[in-house]
């Protein structure tokens, strides 16, 4: 398995691998540049896998997450990042807040 690949069990999610970004800053940036359709498609593909993803990640441990599991963990974190848009706000541009680029995050 290459450094940026998902385990065989989660090949279905490979089309969304570009979301597997290691920092919140990068995940937010990607969210801000994604269309609603793209986020919905990612959400619908990933949501049914969440339980299996968590079980898989737990087998490798998370303190820290081993290198080979990082793409999967980062993909799951990106699902979290977009979930509010899909589940609650329903619009990619609903946001009535300060532009997130001014909310500078540090891991």
């Amino acid at each position, binding site marked *: 398995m290459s450094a940026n690949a998902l385990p065989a069990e989660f090949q279905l999610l490979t089309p969304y691998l570009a979301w597997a970004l290691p920092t*919140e800053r990068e995940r937010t940036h990607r969210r801000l540049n994604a269309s609603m359709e793209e986020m919905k498609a990612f959400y619908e593909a990933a*949501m049914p896998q*969440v*339980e299996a*993803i*968590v079980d898989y*990640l*737990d087998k490798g441990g*998370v*303190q820290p997450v081993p290198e080979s599991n990082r793409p999967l*963990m980062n993909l*799951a*974190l990106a*699902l*979290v*990042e977009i*979930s*509010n848009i899909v*589940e*609650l*706000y329903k619009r990619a541009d*609903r*946001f*009535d*807040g*300060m*532009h*997130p680029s*001014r*909310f*500078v*995050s*540090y*891991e």
Partner: protein
Amino acid sequence: MTKTLMTDKRWAAKYPWLGTGPVATESCISPDYFERERTLIFRRSWLNVGRVDEIPERGQYFVRELAVCHTSILIMRGKDGKIRGFHNVCAHRGNRLVPHERGQCPGKLMCNFHFWTFDTEGKLSWVPDEENFHGLDKSKLGLTPVRTDIWEGFIFVNLDDAGTESLEDYLDGVGKQLNGAPFGKLSRLRTFKVDERANWKVAIDAQNEIYHLPFQHRFTFPDAFVLKDNRYTRLFDVNLYKRHSVWSCEYNPDYKVSPLGALLGRLDRLKDPPRFTQMIGDFDFFLVFPNMVILLFKGAAWDFVVTYNFWPLAVDHTIWEIRYYYPPADNAGTRLNQEYGLCRLRDTLQEDAKAHEAIHAGLRSRAKRELQLQDDEICIRYFHKVVDDHAGLLEAAE
């Protein structure tokens, strides 16, 4: 079953001496008043500048720019394990000693101008070409210490060398309420820094009430807390201390978490979850005067903490620092659930931050010169009174 009373105007009845009239806004936009705050508040109060877990090892240090106090502070854990604070200023000709944000001192800190060298306890240990100075007394030329003390892992400094109030006395009711709380069982998952064009008090005020929740946060968190008639917020409790305050809410039992939030809640299997039994409600908002907020959240499985530090740069310019502290996740469900809560709250704080600037611009226009405060906004009223008690009342400017 919630215990929040739905009666109106409870807090004015609890604190009748505070009054109920409007609050003047000139202090939020006056450059003169800001200079008074600088001298009479920030240079005389205990200010939270970090946590002990930022420098767990001997010789580790961090630097905190305190622009509002016109200084830069070096916090260092000495070889003896003790944490000390110093002005980050070289004893030779005043150069900034440490030019970066944090680091590990190999035993000595060296100024990059002429290599004067200080040990981890701030003593001047080496001066190049010392023989060519005219009677230099190295023992008197250590770094200038700053009063530094620690409460529950939070490091505070006080720039008033003549001050005698201990940190413990200063923290007063906040300390009494939260002493022994398991802050040390949490670790920082994320920090946000927001550079905003707003007065520091405007930014604090916008956070220091829950009234706006169903309105400003109508998409993000409209009904997270108990509501009267399913419409308006009601506080569970309010406590005013010598300078500080806390308001508390209960969660709305009818609140529905989103599908992913519900799923991650079920998959969150943290062992030994820390609990903050010191909490008053399900959500407590402690304002530690002048510029720190400690938010305590009761969670389904574990409790967590968010802190704010508001650092004024000018009357209309503030850095808002936000830090999320969670129990270290020992499983993936907990880790993702934490990120879920973090993103959800972050989005509401971005709404708040936008409001800080919009409100400041509104006040700056002087179209209105007063805040009208309802009963649940009592902590804003108290905060402005404490500011005025320190910095003095301001006559309305033309």
